[in-house]
C-alpha cells in the first residue's frame, strides 16, 4: 500500500507542487520567526556577556517602575553620589572600582540633519578602567578634554565622518561642538541594536547630564577571594539601600530579559502572520487532495475491487499527505533560515546593526516546523482521504463524471454551528471575558473562517450565476466560465475561501484603522486648540532641550504655552502603576480642551490632581477627596482631587497634575516631550519664533493643526500598510490556490476543452474561459472576505467603544479597491492555466480515454 501511495504522489508530482509550495511558505515564516529571534537573543547574550564580564558587580540607582521594557533598557539611569566608590573600595575582597555617567546625545550629520535612528541615541563617559570596558576603541583615541568626543563605528562609517573633524552633538541643553577623536565598537558589532553612542570625557558627561560628583553606574572587580554573590552581599551591606548592587550574571540576565521581551514580541507578531499563512495553506491542501482524490476515484475503486480495505485506501492518501508535509517542512526550515537572514539584512539597511552570531537553528525550531507543516497537511488531507476511502468498488466500472450531486445538508449545518461558536468566541475574546483574550479572538476567527468556508458552497452556485450574468451575456467564454465556476460548488467555494481569509483580515484591519482615524479626527476637532505643536521627535523617546520652553515662554509672538511631560506613580489603593501627565494648568485648557466638569484647574495649579471623570466615578471619588500614591523611590504622598475632566484621548492619561507636582511625585519624570503653543496674533510670527527656539533642537519638529492631523493619519496609514504587507503572504498563498485549482480543472477538462476547440473555439476564447472563471472565484472570495471582515471590524470597533472609538467607519471605496485588486490578482493567477488550456493539443483532447 505504501508503494501505491508513493507512486500516486510521484505520478502526480506537478499537482502537488503548488500545494507543497503553500505549506513551505507557511513553515518558512514559522521557522524564520524562531531563527530570527533566537539568533538575536543569542547574539545579545554573547554581547552582554562580553560587555559585562569585565566586572563582577554593577552598582546602579534603584530601578523605577518596570513598565516598558525597551524604555527601561535604554533610558539613562539616575545618578548617585560618587562617594560610593570610596566606600566600596574599602570593602574587603574588592580589587577595582570604577564609575561612569550615562545619558543621551545625538550626533548631527555632516549635512546638518540630526542623526536620530529608530533607536536610542546613547551617551556615556569614557573610562580606561573597568567601567569603560564595555566599549572598545576601534580607531583614534579616547577623549582627553571637555571638547572631545568618540563616535560608534556604525555612525562613523555610514555618514562618512573623519577623525579630527569638528562634530555637532545634540545634548540636553542644545547643540555643542566637539572634536571627533575616536571610534568605538562593541565586540563585533558596530552599534547596539541601531543605537548611536557618543563617548565624552567624564567631567563633560557630568556637566551635560547633571551628574556632578556622581555616577550612573559603578563597576566592581573582586580580588577573587570570594565568589561574586558573596561579594555582592558585602558591597550591598556597605553602601546601604540607596543603590542597587547586582552581579554580572544577574545583570546579563536582567538585560537579556528586556531584550527577550522585545524579541518575544517580534516573534509573536511574525508567528501570528505565519499562523494565518499556514491556515490558508491548509485550505490549499484540502482542495488539492480533494480534486486529486476525485480524479483518482476510479483508481481507488479498482484498489477496493482487488481487495484493498477502506483503511488501506485512507492510509494511501494520508501517506501522500505525510510525504508532502515532511518535504514541505524540510524545505520550509531551510527557507526560514534564509528569511531570517533576509530580515537581518533589511534591519541592517534600516540602520539596525544586529550583532552577528550566525543563524541559530534550535531543536525547538525544527520540531515546531515539522509539527506545523506536517500536522496541517495531514489534518487538511483527512476529509479528502475519508472521501477516497468511501469510494465503492463498483465505481471502477462506472464512467464517473465528477459529481457534485451530494447534498450539502450536513456540511452546511456543521458550518453554521462552527461559524456561530467561532463568532461568539471572537466576541467573548474581544470583550475580554477570559485571561487569554487574544488567543480566544484568534481561535474564534479561525473557527469562523472554517464555518464560513463550509457554508460557502451553498452560496457559491447562486453567486457564480450572479457574478457571471453579464459576462455570460457578453461571450460564450464568459458563459462557459460561469457554468464551470458553478459546476463543483465545493471546489469553487474552498478555493474562494482561502482568499476570503486574507481579505477578511485586511478588511477588518482597514475598518478598524478607518474607525480609529475617525475617532482621532473627532477628538482632534473637539479638543485640539493649540495653533502649534512641537514634538521632540517622532518616536517620542527623546526630550526637548530644556531651553526651548524657556525661550518660548518669553517670546511675545507666543500667547500661551504648555509643556507635556510624563511620569509614573503607583496608585496605593489599587496597587498599579499609572501614567501621570504634567501640564501648565493655567494655559492647558486653551491649548487642549480638557472639558473640566467639577472643580477647577486653578486647584491643579496649586498642587491638586485633575482626574478623568469616568475614572473618578469608577473609583467613587469626588473633588476634594484625597488619593494616596507611592513614588518610585518609595515615598507615600497624598494628592487632593482638584478637578474632574471629560476627555483623555489627547492627553493619554486620566491623571493630570502641574509640572511642579509632577517633579515632586516622580523625580525621574522625563523632560518636555511635547510643547503646545498658541500664537499671540500672527501664526507666521509664532512659527518663526518656534523655529528660532528649535535651532538648539534640530531633531524636533513643529506642526500646525493641519500638519499634525496629517501626521497622525499618515502614521495610522503606515501601520495599516505594514499589516497589509504581512497579510499579503496569506493572499499570495490563496492565489497559488486559484492557480492550482484551475490547473487541475484544466487537466480534468482536457476532453471538454478539446471538444470546444474542435467545434470552433479559438485560443483566445479558451484563455478567456479560464480567466473568467478565475475572476468569478476571486471576486466571490473577495466579496465573502469583505463581508466577513466587515463583521469582524464591527465586532472589534464595538469592543473598543470604551477606548473612545465610538462609531464604525466603513471605507467603502477602499474595500471596493480590494475586490477589484483581487479580481486582477485572480486573473494573474489564472494566466498559466489559461495558457496551458489554450495550448492543449486539440487531438490529444479529443482522443483522450
Amino acid at each position: 500500500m505504501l508503494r501505491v501511495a508513493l507512486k500516486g504522489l510521484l505520478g502526480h508530482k506537478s499537482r502537488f507542487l503548488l500545494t507543497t509550495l503553500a505549506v513551505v511558505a507557511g513553515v518558512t515564516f514559522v521557522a524564520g520567526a524562531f531563527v530570527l529571534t533566537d539568533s538575536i537573543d543569542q547574539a545579545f547574550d554573547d554581547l552582554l556577556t562580553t560587555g559585562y564580564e569585565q566586572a563582577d558587580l554593577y552598582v546602579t540607582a534603584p530601578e523605577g517602575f518596570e513598565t516598558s521594557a525597551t524604555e527601561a533598557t535604554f533610558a539613562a539611569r539616575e545618578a548617585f553620589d560618587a562617594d560610593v566608590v570610596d566606600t566600596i573600595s574599602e570593602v574587603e575582597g574588592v580589587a577595582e572600582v570604577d564609575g561612569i555617567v550615562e545619558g543621551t546625545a545625538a550626533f548631527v550629520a555632516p549635512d546638518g540633519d540630526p542623526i536620530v535612528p529608530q533607536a536610542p541615541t546613547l551617551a556615556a563617559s569614557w573610562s580606561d578602567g573597568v567601567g569603560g570596558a564595555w566599549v572598545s576603541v576601534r580607531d583614534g583615541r579616547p577623549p582627553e578634554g571637555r571638547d572631545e568626543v568618540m563616535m560608534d563605528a556604525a555612525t562613523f562609517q555610514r555618514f562618512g565622518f573623519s577623525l579630527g573633524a569638528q562634530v555637532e552633538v545634540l545634548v540636553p541643553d542644545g547643540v555643542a561642538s566637539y572634536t571627533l577623536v575616536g571610534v568605538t565598537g562593541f565586540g563585533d558589532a558596530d552599534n547596539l541594536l541601531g543605537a548611536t553612542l557618543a563617548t565624552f570625557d567624564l567631567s563633560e558627561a557630568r556637566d551635560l547630564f547633571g551628574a556632578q560628583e556622581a555616577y550612573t553606574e559603578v563597576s566592581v572587580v573582586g580580588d577573587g577571594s570570594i565568589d561574586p554573590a558573596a561579594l555582592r552581599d558585602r558591597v550591598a551591606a556597605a553602601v546601604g539601600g540607596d543603590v542597587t548592587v547586582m552581579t554580572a550574571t544577574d545583570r546579563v540576565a536582567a538585560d537579556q530579559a528586556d531584550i527577550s521581551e522585545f524579541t518575544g514580541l517580534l516573534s509573536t507578531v511574525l508567528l501570528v502572520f505565519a499562523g494565518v499563512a499556514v491556515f490558508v495553506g491548509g485550505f490549499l491542501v484540502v482542495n488539492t487532495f480533494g480534486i486529486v482524490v476525485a480524479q483518482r476515484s476510479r483508481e481507488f475503486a479498482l484498489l477496493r475491487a482487488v481487495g484493498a480495505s477502506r483503511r488501506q485506501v485512507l492510509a494511501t492518501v494520508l501517506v501522500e499527505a505525510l510525504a508532502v508535509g515532511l518535504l514541505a517542512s524540510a524545505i520550509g526550515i531551510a527557507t526560514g533560515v534564509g528569511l531570517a537572514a533576509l530580515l537581518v539584512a533589511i534591519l541592517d539597511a534600516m540602520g539596525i546593526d544586529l550583532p552577528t552570531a550566525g543563524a541559530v537553528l534550535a531543536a525547538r525550531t525544527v520540531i515546531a516546523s515539522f509539527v506545523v507543516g506536517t500536522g496541517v497537511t495531514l489534518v487538511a488531507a483527512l476529509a479528502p482521504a475519508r472521501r477516497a476511502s468511501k469510494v465503492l468498488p463498483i465505481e471502477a466500472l462506472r464512467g464517473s463524471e465528477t459529481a457534485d450531486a451530494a447534498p450539502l445538508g450536513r456540511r452546511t449545518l456543521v458550518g453554521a454551528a462552527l461559524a456561530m461558536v467561532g463568532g461568539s468566541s471572537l466576541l467573548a475574546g474581544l470583550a475580554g471575558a477570559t485571561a487569554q483574550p487574544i488567543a480566544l479572538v484568534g481561535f474564534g476567527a479561525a473557527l469562523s473562517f472554517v464555518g464560513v468556508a463550509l457554508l460557502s458552497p451553498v452560496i457559491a452556485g447562486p453567486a457564480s450565476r450572479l457574478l457571471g450574468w453579464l459576462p455570460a451575456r457578453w461571450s460564450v467564454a464568459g458563459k462557459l466560465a460561469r457554468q464551470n465556476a458553478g459546476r463543483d460548488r465545493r471546489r469553487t467555494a474552498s478555493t474562494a475561501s482561502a482568499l476570503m481569509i486574507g481579505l477578511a483580515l485586511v478588511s477588518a484591519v482597514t475598518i478598524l484603522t478607518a474607525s480609529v482615524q475617525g475617532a482621532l479626527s473627532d477628538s482632534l476637532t473637539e479638543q485640539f486648540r493649540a495653533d502649534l505643536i512641537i514634538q521632540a521627535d517622532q518616536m517620542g523617546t527623546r526630550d526637548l532641550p530644556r531651553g526651548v520652553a524657556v525661550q518660548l515662554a518669553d517670546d511675545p509672538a507666543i500667547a500661551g504655552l504648555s509643556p507635556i511631560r510624563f511620569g509614573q506613580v503607583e496608585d496605593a489603593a489599587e496597587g498599579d502603576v499609572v501614567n501621570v501627565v504634567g501640564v501648565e494648568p493655567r494655559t492647558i485648557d486653551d491649548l487642549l480642551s480638557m472639558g473640566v466638569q467639577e472643580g477647577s484647574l486653578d486647584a491643579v495649579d496649586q498642587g491638586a490632581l485633575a482626574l478623568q471623570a469616568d475614572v473618578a466615578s469608577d473609583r467613587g471619588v469626588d473633588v476634594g477627596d484625597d488619593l494616596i500614591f507611592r513614588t518610585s523611590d518609595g515615598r507615600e504622598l497624598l494628592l487632593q482631587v482638584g478637578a474632574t475632566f471629560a476627555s483623555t484621548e489627547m492627553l493619554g492619561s486620566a491623571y493630570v497634575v502641574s509640572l511642579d507636582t509632577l517633579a515632586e511625585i516622580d523625580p525621574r519624570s522625563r523632560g518636555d516631550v511635547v510643547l503646545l503653543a498658541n500664537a499671540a496674533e500672527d501664526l507666521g510670527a509664532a512659527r518663526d519664533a518656534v523655529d528660532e527656539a528649535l535651532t538648539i533642537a534640530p531633531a524636533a519638529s513643529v506642526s500646525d493643526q493641519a500638519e499634525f492631523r496629517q501626521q497622525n493619519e499618515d502614521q495610522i496609514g503606515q501601520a495599516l500598510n505594514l499589516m497589509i504587507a504581512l497579510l499579503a503572504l496569506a493572499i499570495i498563498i490563496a492565489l497559488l490556490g486559484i492557480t492550482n485549482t484551475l490547473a487541475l480543472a484544466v487537466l480534468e477538462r482536457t476532453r471538454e476543452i478539446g471538444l470546444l476547440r474542435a467545434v470552433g473555439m479559438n485560443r483566445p476564447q479558451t484563455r478567456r474561459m479560464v480567466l473568467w472563471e478565475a475572476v468569478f472565484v476571486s471576486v466571490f472570495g473577495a466579496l465573502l472576505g469583505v463581508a466577513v471582515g466587515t463583521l469582524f471590524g464591527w465586532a472589534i470597533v464595538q469592543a473598543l467603544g470604551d477606548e473612545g472609538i465610538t462609531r464604525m467607519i466603513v471605507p467603502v471605496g477602499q474595500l471596493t479597491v480590494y475586490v477589484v485588486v483581487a479580481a486582477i490578482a485572480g486573473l494573474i493567477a489564472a494566466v498559466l492555466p489559461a495558457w496551458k488550456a489554450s495550448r492543449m493539443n486539440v487531438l490529444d483532447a479529443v482522443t483522450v480515454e
Partner: protein
Amino acid sequence: MSSAPVDLPDAAMTPAVRVTSAVKVYGEGPTAVRALDGIDLQVPRGSFLAIMGPSGSGKSTLLHCAAALDRLTSGSVEIDGTSLDGLSDRQLTRMRRERIGFVFQSYNLVPTLTAHENITLPLDLAGAKVDRERFDQIVDTLALRDRLTHRPAEMSGGQQQRVAAARALITRPTVVFADEPTGALDSRSGAELLGFLRDAARTVGQTVVMVTHDPVSASYADRLLFLADGRVVDELDGPTADAVLDRMKRFEGNDDAAGEGR
C-alpha cells in the same frame, strides 16, 4: 459565409474535400509508424462517403487530418478548395467553425451546457446569429424539441448523438465528419442517426464523411472506401450490407477486418 482564404471561381465544381498524396508518420526513426501512406481522395459535394478498414488502418488519422484537427506529414487537404496547408491555428479554428462539422463516437457535448446551447455552440463561438428557421427544422427533424433544456447527463446516448449531429449541421458546413458515430449506440438509435445523416446528404446536399466498422452502417453511404495499412485498397459504390460483408471476406489476411474500432 464571409471571406474565404481562397475563393475559387467555380465553387460548385470543386469537391467538398480533396486529399492528395496524404502521408502521416507518427514518431521518428525505427519506431516510426506510417499511419497514412499516400492517400488520394475526393469527396464530391452532397455525397455520403463511408470509410472502413481494420483497426489501426488509419481511418481516424485520415479523418482527423481531413477535418483540420491534425496536420499531415506530407501531401495536402483541401476543404471547399481551400488548402489547410500552412494555416495558422486561428485560421484552422475558423475552418472548423465555418466549414466543418463533427460527430465523435462519444463525448460530443459540453456537460455544463443544455442541448440548445450545445447545438448553437459553434455559432456562439463565432459570434454569429442563429438562423431560427434552420434551427427549428433541424431540431424537429431530429426530434429534439422537448430535450432542448436538458443537459447531456439527463439525455440518453441516442439523444446525445442527435444533439451532436444537430450541432454539426447548424452552421451549414461544407462537410460533416463522423468517427464511428453509432459506436456507442444501440442499433435502433444508430439507425435513426444514420438515416438522418443520409437524408441530409440526399435532400439538402450535405456532404458527409463517416468512419465505421459496421457493414450495416456503411450501407447508408453512397460510396465506401476500404483502408488497410494507410492506403486505400478498395472501393464500392452504392454499398449494401451484403456487398460490404462480401468484400470484407476478401481481406482474409486481416483477421479482425471488422474489428472493434480502437
